[in-house]
C-alpha cells in the first residue's frame, strides 16, 4: 500500500486533572478530574449545557483549558489544535455535522491527511484502505458517493471511518445516537462493541439512559460543569442516573386525561409535495386529526416527515391536495394566514427556523404576536407590555437563562426549545405541529416539553407529533401514523407492538387503514 502510515501513538489512558474552562459569563467545566482507559466504553451523561461537549473539545485540542492538565499514557501533553490530539491517536465525532456535503466520502476522509503524492491527492490508495475498513465494520459505504447523498446514519459512519483512517485508538462520540433511528442505534451499538473488542477506547455521550446502561463500562455524570457522580451500569439504574443529572428526582408529572374527541379539526386530503432535491416526498397523504388527540408520525428519517410538517406549516409548496383546518383550505395560504387560523409550529431545525439567534429571548417570544393590538399601537411596539408578557412566558415555561435579554444563540438546545414552546403555545393555538420536539434535549427538559404537549392535548387542542423516538411516540400518541417513502403505511394504536411499528417503518406489512375508516382497524395482536 502506498499510503503513508503516520506514526500515531496508541492510547492506553487519558487523564484530565482539574480541567477548568470558562466562556464569557459561563463556567463550562469546573475543575473536572476524570480518567479514561483503552478498550472501554466510558459514557458521559448530563443535562443540556452541563459541559460535556466542552470537556471533550478540551480533550481533543479544540479549546485550551483555562486551568488543569491533560495526561496521555501518564505524561502531560499540550494540545494546541485537533491535529496534535490526532497525532496522539485521539479522534472525535462531533455533535454538529463535520463533513463537507459537496465532497465525496473519500475526499472527506483524506482531508488534511498527508498524501503520498503531495501536492496531489492520492485517492486511489485511500480508496483501497477505506473500502477495507468499511467492509471490516460492515458499513457498506460507497467511497465515491457525495456526502450530501448519504443518510444521516451513513454520514456518521463516514465520520467514524475518517477517524479510523487516521489510526485513532481513542474515539470520542458526542451524542451520536441523537440523530439515529432505533434500528440504526442497534447497529451502532454493534459497531461500538467491535471497536472496543479491537482495543479502542470510547467516550460516548448520550441523553438516553437505556443506551448508557446497555453499553457502558463506566458512567460519569456532569452537572453545571462539575462531576457529580461516577458509577457502572450494574451499580445503578435509570432513576438514580436521572436524579444525578437533574439534581432532583425525575418522575412523569403528566397524565393523558380522557379519550380523544370525535370532532375532526384538521383534515389532510391527497397531499403531495416534493423534497429539496425536487423528488416526490409526499404521495397522496390522507389523514384526519381530531380534537384532543396526539397523532404521532413515525418513520425512518427522510421518508417525508419533514416535508409533511413543512407543507402544513406553509414552508413548503404543495403539489396537490388539501389541508383543511376547520373548513378552510390552508394549502394556498401564506404562513401569516395559517398562523392567524390558529396554527402553531415547532420546527425540526430549532436553531435556524425556530428562533432568530441574534434576537433576545423577549423578542423571540413575541415574534409571532408583535403585531397584535396587545403588543402594538399603530406601528409602534408597546415595550413595557411586551416585556411583562414575555418575562411571564419565560418563567411559565421554565426557560433557564441568566436574563430575558440574552440572545437566543447562547442558550442550550433544551432551553431554546422551551422558548419556542413559550411562543407557540402562549398564542392559544387551534392546532400544534411539533417536529422532533425533544431531539438532543436532556431528560429534565424533555419531560417538561412532554408535559406541555399533553397539557394542551387535554385542553382539546390536536397535536401532530413528528418524532423518530419510538418511546416518545408510544408514550404520547393516541394514534400512530407510519410514513414510508412519502406514503401512509398505516395508522395504528400506540399499543401496537414496537416490532410491528418498526416493520411498517421499513415498508413491511401494510396493515393499512385509511384514516377516517378506523372502524376497520385491525386490533393489535396481544403478545
Amino acid at each position, binding site marked *: 500500500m502506498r499510503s503513508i502510515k503516520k506514526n500515531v501513538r496508541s492510547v492506553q489512558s487519558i487523564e484530565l486533572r482539574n480541567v477548568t474552562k470558562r466562556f464569557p459569563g459561563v463556567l463550562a467545566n469546573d475543575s473536572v478530574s476524570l480518567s479514561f482507559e483503552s478498550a472501554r466504553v466510558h459514557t458521559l451523561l448530563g443535562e443540556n449545557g452541563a459541559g460535556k461537549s466542552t470537556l471533550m*473539545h478540551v480533550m481533543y485540542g479544540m*479549546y485550551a483549558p483555562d486551568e488543569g492538565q491533560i495526561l496521555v499514557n501518564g505524561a502531560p501533553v499540550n494540545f494546541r489544535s485537533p491535529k496534535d490530539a490526532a497525532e496522539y491517536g485521539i479522534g472525535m465525532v462531533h455533535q454538529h455535522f*463535520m463533513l463537507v456535503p459537496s465532497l465525496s466520502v473519500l475526499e472527506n476522509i483524506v482531508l488534511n491527511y498527508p*498524501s503520498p503524492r503531495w501536492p*496531489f491527492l492520492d485517492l486511489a490508495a485511500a480508496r483501497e484502505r477505506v473500502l477495507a475498513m468499511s467492509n471490516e465494520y460492515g458499513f457498506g459505504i460507497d467511497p465515491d458517493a457525495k456526502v450530501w447523498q448519504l443518510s444521516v446514519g451513513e454520514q456518521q459512519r463516514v465520520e467514524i471511518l475518517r477517524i479510523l483512517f487516521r489510526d485513532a485508538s481513542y474515539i470520542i462520540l458526542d451524542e451520536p445516537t441523537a440523530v439515529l433511528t432505533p434500528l440504526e442505534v442497534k447497529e451502532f451499538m454493534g459497531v461500538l462493541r467491535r471497536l472496543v473488542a479491537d482495543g479502542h477506547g470510547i467516550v460516548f455521550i448520550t441523553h438516553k439512559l437505556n443506551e448508557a446502561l446497555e453499553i457502558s463500562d463506566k458512567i460519569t455524570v456532569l452537572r453545571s460543569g462539575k462531576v457529580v457522580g461516577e458509577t457502572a451500569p450494574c451499580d445503578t439504574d435509570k432513576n438514580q442516573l436521572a436524579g444525578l443529572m437533574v439534581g432532583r428526582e425525575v418522575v412523569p408529572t403528566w397524565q393523558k386525561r380522557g379519550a380523544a374527541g370525535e370532532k375532526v379539526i384538521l383534515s389532510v386530503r391527497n397531499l403531495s409535495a416534493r423534497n429539496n432535491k425536487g423528488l416526490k416526498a409526499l404521495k397522496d397523504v390522507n389523514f384526519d386529526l381530531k380534537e384532543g388527540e396526539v397523532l404521532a408520525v413515525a418513520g425512518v428519517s427522510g421518508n417525508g416527515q419533514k416535508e409533511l410538517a413543512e407543507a402544513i406549516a406553509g414552508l413548503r409548496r404543495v403539489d396537490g391536495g388539501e389541508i383543511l383546518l376547520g373548513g378552510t383550505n390552508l394549502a394556498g395560504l401564506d404562513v401569516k394566514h395559517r398562523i392567524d387560523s390558529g396554527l402553531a409550529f415547532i420546527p425540526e431545525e430549532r436553531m435556524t427556523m425556530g428562533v432568530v439567534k441574534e434576537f433576545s429571548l423577549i423578542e423571540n417570544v413575541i415574534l409571532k404576536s408583535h403585531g397584535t393590538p396587545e403588543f402594538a399601537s399603530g406601528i409602534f411596539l408597546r415595550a413595557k407590555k411586551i416585556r411583562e408578557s414575555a418575562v411571564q412566558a419565560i418563567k411559565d415555561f421554565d426557560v433557564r437563562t441568566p436574563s430575558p435579554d440574552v440572545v437566543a444563540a447562547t442558550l442550550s438546545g433544551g432551553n431554546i426549545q422551551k422558548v419556542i414552546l413559550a411562543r407557540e403555545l402562549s398564542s392559544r393555538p387551534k392546532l400544534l405541529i411539533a417536529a422532533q420536539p425533544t431531539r438532543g434535549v436532556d431528560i429534565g427538559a424533555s419531560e417538561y416539553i412532554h408535559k406541555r404537549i399533553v397539557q394542551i392535548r387535554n385542553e382539546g387542542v390536536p397535536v401532530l407529533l413528528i418524532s423518530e423516538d419510538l418511546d416518545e411516540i408510544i408514550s404520547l400518541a393516541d394514534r400512530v401514523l407510519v410514513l414510508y417513502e412519502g406514503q401512509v403505511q398505516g395508522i395504528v394504536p400506540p399499543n401496537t407492538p414496537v416490532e410491528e411499528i418498526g416493520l411498517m417503518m421499513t415498508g413491511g406489512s401494510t396493515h393499512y387503514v385509511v384514516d377516517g375508516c378506523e372502524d376497520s382497524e385491525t386490533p393489535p395482536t396481544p403478545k
Partner: protein
Amino acid sequence: MSEFFQATVILGLLTAGVRLATPFLFAGLGEMLSQRSGVLNLGVEGIMLIGAFVSFYVAFESGNLYLGLLAAVLAGGFMGLLTAFVSVTMKAVQGISGIGIHILGLGLSGLFFRLTMGSISTMRGFPRLAIPILKDIPVLGRVLFNQNWMVYAALLLVPISWAVIYKTTFGLKVRSVGENPHAADSLGISVTRVRYICVIIGSIMASIAGAFLTIGQHEAAFVNNIAAGRGFIAVALVYFAKWNPLGVLAGAFLFSMIDAFQLRIQIIDIGIPYEIPVMLPYIVTIVVLALSTRGRVLGPTALTKPFVRGVHT
C-alpha cells in the same frame, strides 16, 4: 460583402475576443479561488486599477515591462493582504468592505497617476509572440497562437486552476474551508490561513489582469478608470461559472466576444448612438446572472460568512 471580407472580419473578431478574454480570465480565476475559500472579494475592480497603474508607471520609468509586472504582483499582494485582514481577521461584511477596496483602488490609481505622470503617455507593451508550427494551423493559429505571452499564460491558468482545485491537497482544503469551515477546523486546518492565501493569490491575479490592460496591450497607456467595470464583470463571471474554472473560461469568452463585437460596431458606425453597444456587456451580465442562479447551487455555502469556532451558522 465579399466572402473574403466576411472571413477577415470574423477572424479579427475572434482574435480580439481571445485577447480581451485575458483580463477576465486572470481576475475571474483569482476571484473564483477567493470565493471557493469562502471570501467574496468585491474589490477586484479597484485592485485591477492599481495593477494597471503601477505596472504601467514602473514599466514606463524603468523601461522594463517585466519590472512593471513584478510591481503589479507586489501591489496586488498588498491589496490582498489588506482585503484578507478586513474580511477574515476583522470579519467585516464582505459586500461593503469590497466596495471600500474598490473606491480605494479607483482613488489611489487616479491620484498617483495625476501626481506622477499627469498626462497620457504611451509605450510599447508586450509584443506578439507567434508560436512556431502552431501559428500555421488555419484559423486557430491566427486566433490563438499569435498573441502576447500574457494571453497564453491566462489560458494556461485554466487547466492549472482546475488541477489545483480538484486534484491537489491544497484545493481540497480550499473547498472544505469554503463549504464547512467547522469541519476543516476540526481536522486541524487553519481556516484563517487558507483564506488569507486564497484572497492574496486572487488579488495578485486581479492586479495582473489590470496590468494586462496597460502593458499587455500593443500600444500601452494608462487612463483613469481603465478597467471600466471589467473587475465587476469578473466577479459576476464566477457566479455564472458556478465556481468552476471551465465555466470561467466559457464566461470570459462570452463577455470578451461581446466586448470585441461592440468595439467593432462602434467603429463601423451603423447609425446608432455609440453608448448602446458599450452597454451591451453589462446588459448581458445582468441577464446571464439572473438566469444562471436557477437550479441547484453547489457553491461554497460559507461564502461571505466569517468563521468563529464553536458558533455554527
